[in-house]
């Protein structure tokens, strides 16, 4: 299993088992060996709670799995770590496709197919949950396809705009 946290770096880990406690025995990031601290993890009596020792100090982590994501609560912070089958493609959001973050209605379309856009430029304005949201270009590129027009309803995850390089 490979893992990612928010960005596209792929991690893989080696764990060694010593009487039910798992110790971090190796870490790679995008295939490169990384140094790491001393981390050991043991199960707690309560399901979904782990006892984590980081460089000698004890922490408690709460975990829950939803889909491919492990949600982790550690030291007051909540994180998401996504599991990937080894060798699967790295970018789950597709090739520059911009998807609707929520179901809603397209209010304004600011670009045309074939137009070049800069990073951060507003491409569309959509209305979802009674508020207006701007859909902005995550990178500079060319609008390859524009799949909706003003007034159309879109489902969550629908590809709104496809951006090429």
């Amino acid at each position, binding site marked *: *299993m490979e*893992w990612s*946290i928010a960005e596209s*770096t792929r*991690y893989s*880990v080696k*764990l060694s088992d010593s009487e039910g406690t*798992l110790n*971090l025995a190796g*870490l790679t*990031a995008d295939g490169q060996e*990384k140094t*790491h*601290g001393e*981390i050991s*993890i043991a*199960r707690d009596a*309560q*399901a*979904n709670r*782990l006892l*984590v020792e*980081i460089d000698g100090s004890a922490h408690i*982590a*709460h*975990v*829950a*799995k*939803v889909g491919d994501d*492990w*949600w*982790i*609560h*550690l*030291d*007051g*912070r*909540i*994180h998401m*770590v996504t*599991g990937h089958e080894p060798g699967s493609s790295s970018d789950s959001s597709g090739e520059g496709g911009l998807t609707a*973050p*929520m*179901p809603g209605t397209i*209010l304004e379309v600011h670009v045309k197919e074939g137009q070049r856009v800069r990073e951060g430029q507003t491409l569309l304005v959509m*209305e*979802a*949950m*009674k*508020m*207006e*949201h*701007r859909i902005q270009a995550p990178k500079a590129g060319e609008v390859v396809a524009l799949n909706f027009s003003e007034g159309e309803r879109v489902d*969550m995850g629908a590809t709104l705009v496809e951006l090429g390089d």
Partner: protein
Amino acid sequence: MTELPFDAVLVANRGEIAVRVLTAAREAGLRGVAVFSDADAKALHVELADEAIHLPGQTLAETYLNTDAIIAAAQSSGAQAIHPGYGFLSERADFASAVKQAGLIWIGPPPEAISTMGDKISARLKMMESGVPVIPGEELSVPDGADHLGQLAACAARVGYPLLLKASAGGGGKGMRAVSEPKMLRTEYEAASREASAAFGDGTIYVERLLVGARHIEVQVLADSHGNCIHLNERDCSLQRRHQKVIEEAPSPVVNAELREAMGAAAVMAAKAVDYEGAGTVEFLLSDRGDFFFLEMNTRLQVEHPVTEMITGVDLVLKQFEVAAGMTLGLTQSDIGITGHSMEARIYAEDPSKGFLPAIGDLAMWRAPAGPGIRVDTGVREGDSVTVDFDPMLAKLVVHAPTRTAAARRLYNALSDLRALGVITNIGFLRQMTIHPDFVSGSITTDYLDSTDISEFAEPEHDPSTLVAIAAAASRFGLDRVGVAGGDGTLVDEHTGHAGDPFRTLSRSFP
């Protein structure tokens, strides 16, 4: 407590406020009747009620806004009184009248007070008449097809820049736009008018001077039907994002005893001007020069009412029941003091790193903090789904401590102990907010968040190796195959170890 003339109350709402009111009803010895739509069939408020009545239909108009069906539900269930909560029908004068005409008790102010205060223009006139200070501004009603630009520009020039465009019919930040200079006027007007039409069916816009560097201070009032009216101090709700409150506190760090008395007196004057009854809130803007101006009156219970309850020890929902029953307040102004400091953080399913976009998902884990001075008002529990059907507010995390500094620290710790997994929330943003020097020093004004780079409140990252190791270990232990609620699906209370306590998330601890 004296016997109330009704023994059952229907709560015409959902989510945390329905839970709050149903709990108060139970504490007052009343039977609580809930209503619910299809999407809420398994919701916490339904589970908590003594009786729950299904409202068929898909849209809000068919369900929580369906006045006829709700009144019929009260009659069929034997509830003699209706509590509207906040939002939905709470500020609909026609509903209040219909409830009364049906021979039921309306737990809220008189319909006339709702309509006078519900319309920004009539409210403003009433306040000017009564000597309550108001902000410079005027309404702009443009008939369809007329040239709005000329009128708009002239009106804006009279009011003065910077200005605020807001839906005359509205609230909750919808249809509201700030304009700092004339060249932005047209675009913002069109957006505001469009949002106003969509949200309230009325595109009429109110143009108002925007006070920069002002604070949002609101005063809680309570009035009975015998002419008694008192205030319960102020709440400071200056920390807002696009006019949606983020953290509220009481008392305000900038209001001294003298100003409190003046604002309290103005709030009581406002309430008396409309013969108010029950719990209400008079909102003011406090300028950086110490002048205050009437903003609006919310003729209902507020989301942030708990902070007032914490510092005064008065249960506002119970008082609403008593006033609706025709009882006297049983409190005079001199009975109202301030004990310690209280703060409330609104926990939303939203992603601060993506412009606070509402988030959806399943609450695979929802464990609320508990302890002295911590109160959690929520309508969700572990295993619930967060959908697009309703407002994404999951809970209100309220703390009470002897001082403001202690309250802020308690809030930070309580936020850190709130384990909400499976749905992206604003918890991390709120945590960073509570320790930010600007918040700690109490110098937040209403324009703060909209003029601050949100990435300032991003949380420091954990070392990736730790997180990845935990995920890998959790998989190796097979924790993904174990239900969060324990192998057999029963909820185990983390603090007591007892299984199956559905009321744990409701625990309210008053220090």
